């Protein structure tokens, strides 16, 4: 139980307004625990408390079994999405500075900075001052700093928010690599895809409390329905089309259909493959009955839907 990160009964309020209302969490070594939550639910506050940067009003945090203090900072690396930068220094200099503050020699810090910046795709721009960096580049640098001193615990607060698809893949691969070498990782996110790609277990932070952990697949399954949208065009007759689907037996089980001006929307399925089959069947039935379908889209449950299911 000593390895990894342990949070027990943590509460925090700002100006009398409670933000965290008793959070319990254990992140063992070699695991990624995801915490999902929409804006303003206390993710960043919990990240700062988990990393020892902020004291909770009550409750306890243990980093590898130790109470957070200045002397345990080498045990944890944290991304700080809201924190700014020294704009007059380069990424190479800032990562070097960070490592040296942890007692690394100048030579070791220089080499470490070089290899890490290369790994997150910042190698070619490492010597440029940070003020010239885009938002996404700064986020990659933020991730680099969190991992720079090789801590056994990582607290990652929305590490890929604002990064392009390729950059996200790079960071996700790096997060999984960190797990494979035994790091305990607490991953805060607003992105269901992110936790699905990275986390072993996921909890929802809603109204200051952290719900029970589930696997990412269960989160998807229990987070509301996929939506299939069939666009029929201006000449389409949605009411008649709905009748066709009912008569063809396409709308079975929990599926419900809603009629729009030029489209039909079907909800109810929680399994992506079943919803894909349903959309194929619906298009076939409508085409046979002379109701042309112009386009089909399938949308997964959103984080808002998932949170709504848990309130």
């Amino acid at each position, binding site marked *: 139980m000593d390895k990894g990160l342990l949070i027990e009964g943590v509460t925090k309020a700002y100006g009398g307004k409670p933000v965290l209302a008793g959070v319990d969490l254990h992140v063992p070594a070699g695991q990624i625990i995801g915490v999902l939550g929409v804006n303003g639910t206390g993710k960043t506050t919990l990240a700062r408390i988990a990393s020892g940067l902020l004291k909770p009003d009550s409750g306890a945090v243990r980093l590898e079994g130790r109470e957070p203090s200045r002397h345990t900072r080498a045990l944890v690396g944290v991304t700080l999405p809201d924190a700014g930068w020294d704009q007059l220094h380069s990424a190479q200099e800032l990562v070097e500075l960070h490592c040296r503050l942890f007692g690394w020699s100048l030579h070791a810090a220089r080499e470490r900075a070089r290899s890490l910046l290369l790994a997150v795709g910042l190698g070619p721009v490492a010597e440029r001052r940070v003020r010239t960096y885009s938002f996404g580049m700064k986020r990659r640098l933020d991730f680099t*700093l969190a991992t720079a001193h090789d801590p056994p615990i990582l607290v990652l607060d929305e590490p890929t928010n604002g990064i392009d698809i390729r950059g996200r893949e790079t960071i996700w691969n790096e997060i999984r690599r960190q797990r494979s070498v035994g790091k305990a990782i607490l991953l805060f996110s607003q992105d269901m895809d992110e936790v699905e790609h990275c986390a072993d277990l996921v909890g929802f932070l809603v109204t200051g409390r952290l719900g029970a952990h589930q696997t990412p697949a269960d989160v998807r399954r229990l987070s509301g329905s996929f939506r299939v949208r069939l666009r029929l065009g201006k000449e389409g007759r949605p009411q008649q089309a709905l009748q066709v689907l009912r008569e063809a037996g396409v709308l079975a089980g929990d599926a419900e259909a809603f009629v729009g001006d030029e489209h039909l929307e079907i909800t109810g399925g929680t399994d992506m493959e079943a919803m894909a089959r349903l959309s194929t069947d619906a298009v076939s039935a409508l085409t046979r009955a002379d109701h042309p379908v112009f386009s089909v889209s399938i949308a997964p449950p959103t984080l808002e839907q998932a949170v709504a299911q848990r309130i």
Partner: protein
Amino acid sequence: MNSFRVLFGRYVRHTFRLVFLLFFNLAVAVFFLLVMSGTFGRLQGPNYPLVMLPFALLSAAFSASSSVSGSLTADFSSGYIYRLLATPCSIFTVIASPLLANLVFVTVYGLLLTGIAVLLAHGELPAAGPLGVLVCLLLTTLWGFALGGIGVIFGVGGRNPQLAQLAAISVFYPLVYLSPALLPLELMAPWLATATRLNPTTYIVIAMRSLLVGGWTWGGVLLGLGMAALLAALSLSAAAKAVSTALHRGES
């Protein structure tokens, strides 16, 4: 100690990258020294540039320290301070290292200004010799250190680097003009002299002037050093407390 050394280096590097600041910090003090010596030098005697040197030194220390407190407040308001505090640095180190890095600049400015004052005084050297000049620079640095701390307190309170500089300006003028930096105590109106005696800067200026034009008057020098050290210590503790309070309120 490691954190202190690394952050000290960072602020020295940071300041060197703002070359225009280095220039303006010195230019105002040099300008003052030249104009005052040119205006009153003939009336007051050949060592007048050395008499005015304390004001020029305090002016340079003020400019340098307000730059430093501005940088520190910028670290706070941008949130970069959280990145530093995620390392083994203490709040004390984060605040003290730039204020002490300022020592490098104030020392260089002080040496340049002393050189210029000696030239303007037709080669007359400071009365207490090279060691006296060093003590004079120490007094200047400690005073600048205190002023920088005050800038941090206001800048962090208002979460605004400009406020740090404005606060330093509002403190600088009363501290320096209510001191014998421009006019000896005995020539002041009685009420002004009384107010001046309540100002700790007065004793720092008296110590500096004695080292530059009088010689080693131990009582005055020790009183000046004591006042400067006390101001610096109070200011640093108050700045550390202000930053710590603001961080715990989550104000960054």
